[in-house]
């Protein structure tokens, strides 16, 4: 760290002070402001801060924050200090801030927004690049996903030393990574198929049989995998089957965990040790947390796009467990609520369903079309007051989820 040029050291310490002020002022968790100020002082800050560290970059449409947390947990047995932007601040400022706050860390596990992968991969000379999945998300401001995948291909071609850990079950991810010299392919599953009916290479129809896929016309096909998720278990490179036994719920998190085990392997951490770390993770930036509120046990789930909602609906305890759905359409959520029509809500029939958030009318019209009965509420407390006891599952998209956490007093 002391090898940093004076300007970068100054940028880091000014940024660090701003982070502390931001936290003290109650304006945020301090994970971005320090990086913003630091990058303004020294645009090359991220590259300088990443120098001489082993960087893992985690990206994809869904599961970035959770996987970043799981990779950090899986690497814990190394006994090294690990820098990480654990709260989802995944643009350059958030990453610079995380690195600046952990000058002694020799390893950095960084969540990275999909769009920033080319510049961040080049700046950090990452040792490992994790590619989780790609699906439609906030189309009013995000690039079309095929174009994203193409940019990743170009970025990987310019970084031939990086070890890519990639989900072989997502054809677009497979296409993004298939030319890389070093790839650990993971059968991490793909629940959402609606963005991958066609071959990313030639556009013909993909043929699918169980988990396997291949193009009907060109030679593109699912690469052979080294790690696999199989139901509740992981199959390691030696073919041994072990139960994952995570505290985190749902198929998506089992998938993220197997990816984390594959990253741990790159660092020489054995599966038994890495698994122990994964099992200790109980919540991630408020997600999956259970909060007690006036006699009702509320569990919080975050879902930001159709694929994420599909996974979140899978996690719900069986009916008649009541559910509250909350949807906003602020800039971080995407201003367009069209995606609601890509989610199949019929599975909510037979439950008590509360509908909240700033775009609750959009959501209500959607549920009406699926013959799901619902009650419109002003906020999570109104749902709690109608229930009075028992449990409530809450699924919100990004800012709706944050508003509910705030309403619950950040206990969440």
């Amino acid at each position: 760290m002391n090898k940093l040029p004076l300007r970068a050291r100054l940028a880091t310490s000014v940024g660090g002070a701003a982070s502390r002020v931001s936290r003290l002022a109650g304006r945020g968790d301090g994970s971005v402001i320090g990086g913003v100020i630091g990058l303004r002082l020294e645009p090359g800050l991220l590259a300088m801060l990443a120098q001489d560290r082993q960087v893992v970059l985690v990206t994809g449409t869904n599961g970035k924050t959770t996987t970043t947390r799981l990779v950090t947990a899986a690497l814990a047995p190394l006994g090294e200090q690990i820098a990480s932007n654990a709260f989802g601040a995944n643009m350059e400022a958030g990453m610079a801030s995380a690195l600046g706050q952990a000058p002694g860390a020799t390893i950095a596990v960084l969540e990275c927004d999909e769009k920033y992968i080319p510049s961040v991969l080049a700046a950090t000379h990452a040792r490992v690049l994790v590619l989780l999945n790609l699906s439609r998300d906030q189309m009013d401001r995000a690039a079309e996903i095929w174009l994203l995948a193409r940019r990743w291909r170009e970025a990987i071609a310019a970084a031939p030393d990086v070890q890519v850990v990639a989900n072989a079950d997502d054809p677009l991810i497979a296409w993004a990574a298939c030319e890389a010299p070093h790839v650990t392919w993971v059968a991490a599953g793909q629940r959402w198929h609606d963005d991958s009916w066609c071959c990313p290479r030639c556009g013909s129809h993909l043929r699918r049989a169980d988990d396997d896929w291949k193009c009907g016309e060109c030679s593109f096909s699912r690469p052979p995998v080294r790690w696999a998720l199989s139901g509740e278990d992981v199959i390691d490179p030696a073919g041994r089957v072990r139960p994952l036994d995570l505290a985190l719920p749902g198929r998506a998190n089992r998938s993220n965990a197997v990816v984390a085990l594959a990253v741990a392997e790159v660092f020489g951490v054995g599966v038994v040790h890495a698994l122990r770390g994964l099992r200790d993770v109980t919540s991630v930036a408020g997600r999956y947390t259970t909060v007690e509120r006036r006699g009702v046990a509320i569990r919080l789930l975050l879902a930001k796009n159709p694929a994420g909602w599909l996974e979140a609906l899978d996690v719900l305890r069986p009916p008649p467990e009541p559910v509250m759905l909350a949807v906003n359409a602020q800039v971080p959520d995407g201003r367009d609520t069209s995606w609601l029509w890509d989610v199949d809500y019929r599975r909510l029939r037979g439950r008590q369903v509360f509908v909240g958030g700033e775009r609750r009318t959009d959501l209500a019209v959607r549920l009406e079309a699926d013959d799901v009965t619902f009650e419109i509420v002003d906020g999570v407390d109104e749902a709690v007051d109608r229930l009075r006891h028992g449990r409530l599952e809450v699924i919100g998209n990004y800012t709706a989820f944050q508003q509910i956490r705030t309403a619950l007093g950040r206990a969440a």
Partner: protein
Amino acid sequence: MTRSLRLVWVYPDLLSTYGDRGNLLVLERRARLRDIAVEPVFVNSDQPVPRDGDIYLLGGGEDLPQVLAARRLRADGGLAAAADRGAVVFAVCAGYQLLGHEFGGADGEPTAGLGILDIRSGRGERRAVGEIVADVDPALGVPALTGFENHQGVTRRGPDAVPLAQVTLGTGNGDGTEGAYAGRVLGTYLHGPALVRNPGLADLLLGWVAGPIRPLPAERDELALTLRRERLAAAAP
């Protein structure tokens, strides 16, 4: 009706980018509430397009899927044949563009469309993203359109297509008009679930194939109309 109304969703594997299923679900619901039997038909791009459908729906798509869809639909011929014999076609965004004579391909190059609507589209200077409001051609008797647009297309009409609406907020075709129609073929830049906030347009399409249809009971229409009011109020300057 002696048989079910056939709602044909054309190429959901290529032309379904963001909530396009909504149009099918809205038509289904509004037909069933009037005791009109409906049969949804999903046609992927490796299957022939049936020629005996009543309403054909085309959604939005990214550049490459749009080019592929146009190529396969031209080779198949089913959609053009159905439009020829008077079937209803409702297309949004990329689907709207490919009904025309040509549209901009992956690098903006002119690409042949189906030519069943007299329009030509190309790529504009900047992407139009946001709420759109437009007053519908009075001849159609449908209240103002409200929706979301997200495209970089510019569309010009030939003499055989009429503007669907006049833009009061947003971009649409790029010349102050929005969408186009000719006979029972109708396209719009409102993307995704365009019929959700425009139940009047949904009923127009249903009426074209099912004959005069009765209004829905108020309580069945209330939520959709509330949503319309909310979005129009939010879009008002």
